[in-house]
């Protein structure tokens, strides 16, 4: 880095900029490395894929991104008027993250690939590959009540099957 010879003022400017940058990054760090704040940020995530990717960033992010409340938000995003006992029941049966990853996600993936799905919510292309930077039809698959209900049924069946396994039947 070449210092301009005759610009002491410039040097000061650079220093200041650097300081500002450092401050900013420290603030950002503070947010992103702080569990609660990170949680608040992740609450705004729209879809499961993003949240799942977030969980891959670091151990701390994983802890936060795997919080059931975040996944509950994702699962019930398009489900108007969720039943009161939903949280209790789902948590008992394995949790929202499992609900999404094992049951809701395959359902959405399949229904987006088969265009003749009769689900009431419209499903647009779900990108299976990392999106090309140019045009990105940012998938807005909607998972309404029917999809969630079906996934819940499957979750309960799976739980039941696993129960027998544990009992050593």
């Amino acid at each position, binding site marked *: 880095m070449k210092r301009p010879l005759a610009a002491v003022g410039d040097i000061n400017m650079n220093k200041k900029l650097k300081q500002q940058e450092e401050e900013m990054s420290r603030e950002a760090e503070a947010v992103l490395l702080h569990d609660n704040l990170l949680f608040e940020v992740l609450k705004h995530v729209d879809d499961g894929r993003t949240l799942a990717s977030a969980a891959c960033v670091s151990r701390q992010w994983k802890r936060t991104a795997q919080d059931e409340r975040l996944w509950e938000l994702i699962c019930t995003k398009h489900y108007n008027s969720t*039943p009161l006992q939903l949280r209790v029941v789902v948590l*008992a*049966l394995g949790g929202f993250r499992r609900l999404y*990853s094992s049951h809701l996600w*395959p359902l959405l993936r399949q229904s987006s690939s088969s265009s003749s799905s009769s*689900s*009431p919510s419209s499903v647009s292309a779900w990108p299976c590959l990392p999106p090309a930077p140019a045009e990105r039809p940012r998938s807005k698959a909607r998972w309404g009540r029917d999809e969630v209900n*079906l996934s819940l049924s499957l979750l309960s069946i799976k739980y*039941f099957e696993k*129960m027998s396994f544990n009992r050593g039947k």
Partner: protein
Amino acid sequence: MKRDNPNQLNFATSSSSNKGKMWCEEQDAGGVDELFAVLGYKVKSSDMAEVAQKLEHLEEVMGSVQQDGLSQIASDTVHYNPSDLSSWLESMISELNPLPNFESFNSIVQDPFLETSCVTSIDSHSYNSLNSHARSHISVSTQQQMVVDSDFGSDLISIPGKAVYPPSQQHPPLQHQPQPKKLKPSSYSGMGSSNTASWGSPNESISAHPIESARPMLLVDSQENGIRLVHSLMACAEAVQQQNMNLAEALVKQIGFLAVSQAGAMRKVATYFAEALARRIYKLYPTNPHDTAFTDLLQMHFYETCPYLKFAHFTANQAILEAFAGKSRVHIIDFGMKQGMQWPALLQALALRPGGPPSFRLTGIGPPSHDNMDHLREVGCKLAQLAETIHVEFDYRGFVANSLADLNASMFDVREGETVAVNSIFELHQLLAQPGAIEKVLQVVSEVKPEILTVVELEANHNGPVFLDRFTESLHYYSTLFDSLESSGGGDIGGGAVSVQDKVMSEVYLGRQICNVVACEGPDRVERHETLVQWRTRFQSAGFGPVHLGSNAYRQASMLLALFAGGDGYRVEEKDGCLTLGWHTRPLIATSAWKLI
């Protein structure tokens, strides 16, 4: 295995099409080819391509040699053991010192040997051509005659002479121009065999084929074999119907061979049907499986592999859920408890319904178990545990009964203010084996005064009075079912793929049904499936009227199917308020709901 330009051959068929039918064999991995072995030739399956090539080469060579040269060959071949086909050919070829001579070759190789009056497939051509060559040799030299199995009925053809039927099919591996026919020199005319008819009228036209003689080709005409297989199955069933057991026996053996030549679903279906027919013929009736645990296990695998059972459960549950809307005390009577896989989903749905879950009672009925474990109770305990986890008040009672007809309404202890639902998945058809049983059961059901009766049954008529009709129906039905199984690479439910074991077990499960439909009679034949229309008549005469399954059930079912690989093939259809799940155009199971009117 490739098929070489069948279109370029003459596809003339004639009345003698029955003759000259050959069996094509598929390779056996390793070991001696079984069809050749039957005929007395030991040919390793791995050598087949080579043998084929050599035979072609031989043909070439023989064609180029002048007529008298042949008799010389004939005398020489005594020294070689024809059962070792490969080396025999080798020696033949080396003796002949081949110099392919195109012109003379043409005249010989074409015409009578390429006579297609017999079969429309490529294979027969070379069969005939080589047949003649081979036969001349062998009958002159070694005098070994194949004994044709005379047990076969009139439908079957005798295997002409020394059946050296190479699987390879190339047409004379040289280019040749269509030539005016010239019958093969008379030295062959003495051979009487059922194939002589084929030598009669020569080919009209043989188009030139590009030769790729170096490429070993094994042709398995499985399509034609498939047709033959079906015909044989039907013929065998007819023979059984007419009590012509000898013919049936012969046919069953043939079916066994043909089945092996097929692949995939057809093979499995044919094998099961052949086994069932054999049992019927030899009177080795299968005893009804007492090991219900094993049957349950098989059904579990079937549950995982394909959507039929899940469809049944989901649609029935939806109907029950709707019938229970607003009710605070519910009681379900399940006629076939098995592993209880239907109920977790219903419990969960009830737990989440607006207004909270009702208090839930379940009465499960099952057959007596032959090991010391109380399966019914275990299933009940598991369900109770699940219900507790999701905070649903749960009460369970298990009943052991040999037949549903043994039950009566008072056993169920229906309490005041309870809403009852009766559920039967693939249970009612078994009652048709005993006269009067179904009426009694329906009577009991109406005494219980259920809010809804949900019934899922196989959509097929396998209970006709005529054996042949039942056979035909079930052949079509199970073929479709096996087809759908084949396509089920797996269901993505819970991210688990269907394993090969699941698939195999499902096939065994279905195979048992096939065995029962075909081989059993009287009270043993419990797989008495009937169609929805037939059931409707029965229910209506017992005082029940249909309840329309709503669009929720339809939607859920359709979504469910999307999760199964091969989901495109499955079709959910609505028929008079009932839902059917089928494979392509054929409905296979039907869910219906009924209530007392």
